[in-house]
Each structure stands twice: as C-alpha cells, then as structure tokens.
C-alpha cells in the first residue's frame, strides 16, 4: 500500500517535471484544451442561468388581455367586471393605457419613438392570474377571452417561458453535442501528446523494463501526463467561463430589465465546476490510456 502511494507520487512528480521541462509547449496545449472545453462549459453556464430564470418566472404564469386601441373605457370596464366574475380567475389587474404610456416613456430609448406617434399607441390591458395554472386550462381561458367584444389580443405570459424551455432543451442537446465533439478532440490531443512523450522517453521505458519495472510502473507517468494536461485545460476552461460570466453580467442584467426581469448571471455551480474538472481529467486519462495501449509495445 505504501509502495503503491510512493509509486503514484513519484509518477505524478515525474509527469509534472516533464510538463515543466517544456513550459511553453505545455502551456499552449493546456490553453488549447481549455478553450475547447470552455465552449461546452460556457453553454452549460448559460443554460443553468436560463433554467433558473424559467423556474422563477413560470412560478406565476399570467394571461395578458389587451383591449383594442379604439375601444373606450366603458368597454374596458365591462370586460374588467366580466373577468372579475369569471370562473377560474384569481385576480384581474387593470393596467390603464396611460400607465403603460408613462412606463414606456420612462425608457429613454423608447421615449423619442413614442413622442413622434400621434396619441397613445398603447391599449388598456388586464393582467389576469388564474387558479388553475396548467398550460391547457390557461389556453382554454385565453381562447374564451379572445371571443369577447373589444378584446384585440390575448397573450399567455407563460408562452415565452415555454418557448424558452423548448430553447433550453435544444440548448442542452447542443451543449451535449459540442461537449462530445470537443471531448473527443481533447482525447485526441492527449493521445498525440502522450505518443510524443513515449517517443521522447523511449530509452527510459526500455531501461525501466530491463530493471524490472512492471507495466503499470512504466505507464503511470504518462497517464499522469495526460491527466495533468486535461485538468490544466479544465482549470483554464473554468477561468474562461467565470470571466465571461462576470463580463456579461451587467449587459445581460440590462437586457433582462427591458423584459422586467432581474437577472444576475451566475458562474458555474460548484457541482458543475467539479464535473468540468472531473471530465477534463478523465478525458486526459482516457487519451493517455488509448495512446499507451497503441504505442507502448512498439517502443
């Protein structure tokens, strides 16, 4: 047991020394691996944030009922009372067109555009929260409101959430695909690096064999070489992703504000970070092993 630990320590130290012996090479390889891994890692970061957003928003789905622009206030009041008395409605909040106009004018970008328009382009509206929040029943209510006089447009506010959820599903597949492709790339990089290492250290392999080294003794430093490269790449990918998170945080929060959402982009979770490092190290290990399996005997 102690011998085993000793062998592992020696192999790790040896692999580390070999990496440091060609620092620029090693750095470039680690960067290449890191950048490749940063793409799926960044995708996962965005997905996790988007998923958090939908979790939060879809907690209270609402139906927006927009009156026709030329409907008068009496019609609106009528629709309001119908909504108030309708089955399945928890609450119907009236949003007068003046309020909407004022709110939109508060946005400096929009103000100029609005001011050139004659009159108030916004209709009266109601925001309806319902007792039964299942998409099907909300869809049914929306269809019913659409038939009412003076109602121009009914929108399920959860619709974009569902669209986003569908996008997230797509995004998850894209991240998986990207991860698989770039993971294969990482394996290929480690495979070639370990192959070069085997050629460079041919003499050492031969001599160790003659002096009674077991096959695992000979293989170990090369495995560590692959694992260290993979892990180094994982760390680089983590740094890149975290930096991107911080850099994008303010612009994305601004964007979200336009949709009346508060969103502060979060970096990779501890779990995802650990997963990233484990996968990076594991792929390095795999690449090294495949390379050893193919090339060790011919050394």
């Amino acid at each position, binding site marked *: 047991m*102690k*011998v085993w630990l000793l062998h592992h320590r020696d192999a790790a130290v040896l692999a580390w020394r070999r990496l440091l012996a060609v620092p620029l090479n090693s750095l470039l390889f680690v960067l290449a691996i890191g950048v490749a891994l940063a793409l799926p890692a960044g995708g996962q970061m965005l997905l996790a944030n988007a998923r958090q957003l939908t979790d939060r928003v879809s907690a209270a789905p609402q139906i927006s009922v927009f009156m026709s622009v030329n409907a008068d206030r009496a019609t609106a009041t009528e629709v309001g009372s119908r909504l108030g008395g309708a089955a399945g409605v928890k609450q119907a909040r009236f949003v007068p067109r003046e309020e909407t106009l004022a709110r939109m004018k508060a946005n400096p970008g929009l103000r100029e555009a609005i001011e050139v328009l004659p009159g108030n382009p916004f209709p009266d509206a109601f925001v309806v929260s319902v007792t039964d929040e299942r998409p099907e029943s909300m869809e049914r209510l929306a269809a019913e409101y659409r038939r009412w006089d003076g109602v121009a447009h009914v929108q399920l506010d959860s619709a974009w959430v569902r669209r986003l959820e569908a996008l997230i599903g797509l995004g998850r597949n894209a991240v998986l695909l990207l991860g698989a492709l770039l993971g294969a790339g990482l394996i290929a990089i480690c495979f070639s690096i370990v192959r070069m290492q085997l050629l460079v250290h041919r003499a*050492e392999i031969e*001599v160790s064999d003659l002096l009674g*080294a*077991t096959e695992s003794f000979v293989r170990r430093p090369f495995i560590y070489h692959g694992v260290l490269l993979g892990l180094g790449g994982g760390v680089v990918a983590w740094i890149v992703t975290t930096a991107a998170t911080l850099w994008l945080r303010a612009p994305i929060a601004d964007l979200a504000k336009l949709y009346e959402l508060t969103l502060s982009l979060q970096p990779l979770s501890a779990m995802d970070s650990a997963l990233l490092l484990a996968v990076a190290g594991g792929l390095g290990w795999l690449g090294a092993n495949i390379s050893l399996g193919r090339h060790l005997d011919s050394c």
Partner: protein
Amino acid sequence: MIRFDRVAKRYPPGVDALSEVSFEVAEREMVLVGGHSGAGKSTLLKLVAAIEQATSGAVLVGGQNLSGLSRAALPFLRRRIGMVFQDQKLLFDRNAFQNVMLPLSIAGFPPREAAQRVRAALDKVGLGKREKALPVMLSGGEQQRLAIARAVVGRPGLLLADEPTAHLDAETANDVARIFHDFHQVGVTMLIATYAHELFPAARRLHLDHGRLRT
C-alpha cells in the same frame, strides 16, 4: 543458481546464436564467458535475464524455468538480477544519483533508505563525489562504473556483466575487476562475459565458439 539444459537460440531470420548449450553455475560462483565476437556471449546473458527467450532447451534461474515464466512474474525475476549491459543503457537525461536510484524506485524502496543505498553504491565504485553529474559529463570508465553501481544497488544475488571492462585502460579495468571481486567476496553469484579473463584469475571459464560451448 543458473542451469542451461541443451539451450538453443535462433534469431530471425535464421541466425543460430547458441546451440546445444548446457552448463551450471553454482551459488556464489564466479564464471566467465569468453569467445570471439559474435560467439553468443551477450545472447547467453540475455537468456538468463529473460530479455530473450530460448528457442529450445531449458533455462533455469534460481530453480525457476524461464520458459514457464509469466509476463507478470518477469519484473520480479529481473529485480533479483543485477545486470551491466554491453552498451550500459544509462539514462542521459538523469544524473548519476538518479540513474542509480531507478532500480530502487522501481522496487518501491522507501526514499530515505534508497538514498543511503545509492550513495553507498556510488562510493563503492568511486563516484561518491559525482552524484550530480550527468552521464555525458563522465568519462567512459566512469560511465562503466556508474552502470555497475546501478546493477548492484539493489543487492542482487546474481550479477550479470557484459564486457564490463571493454574500452577501459588497464588501470581502470583493474579497478572494475576489483569491484567485482569485492561483490563476489560478499556472496554474489557472477556471470561475466569478457575477453579479459586475466583480470579474474580465480574464476571458472566457459568458452563459446560460434554458439557452442567448447570444453
């Protein structure tokens, strides 16, 4: 310790390096293998260390038939044998200390004890002050002695040496021979391929001629 029973070794495509070779080496014995260049001396030593396998016949080392040796058992046989190779096989990117350390690392010696042993082995061959030197910084004779230090550092019961005094001047060759005598004195069995049998007057001699033992 070593027994060859009608051993033949044929290299592809059909070079008979050894034929009908039978002999025994007893424990604590010192035996020289002589013969012209290409007679099969290196081949004979390689068969003992299981670097090559006999084409026919039986090679026994420490009572163990090497033809039945599994791949997994091979490293442990080699650890019991010290070997000085004809081409030395030093590692040129490691210093003297690290070269001698290698067999002990392989065997999993605790580092502190291993370091003591390495220093003792280097002292023994007169390289105690050169432990930081890379092999290229050593003279031919010093490299030869470094190879010997590496072969004996694991205190093997059997030492194989392939022309350990070739390319050495008379005085250095004598030093090397004296080192071998010292190991023989402490009970190491020795099989040495050499032309220079006069350096080892007490040893028994085998003579190879075109792969056959001449008696």
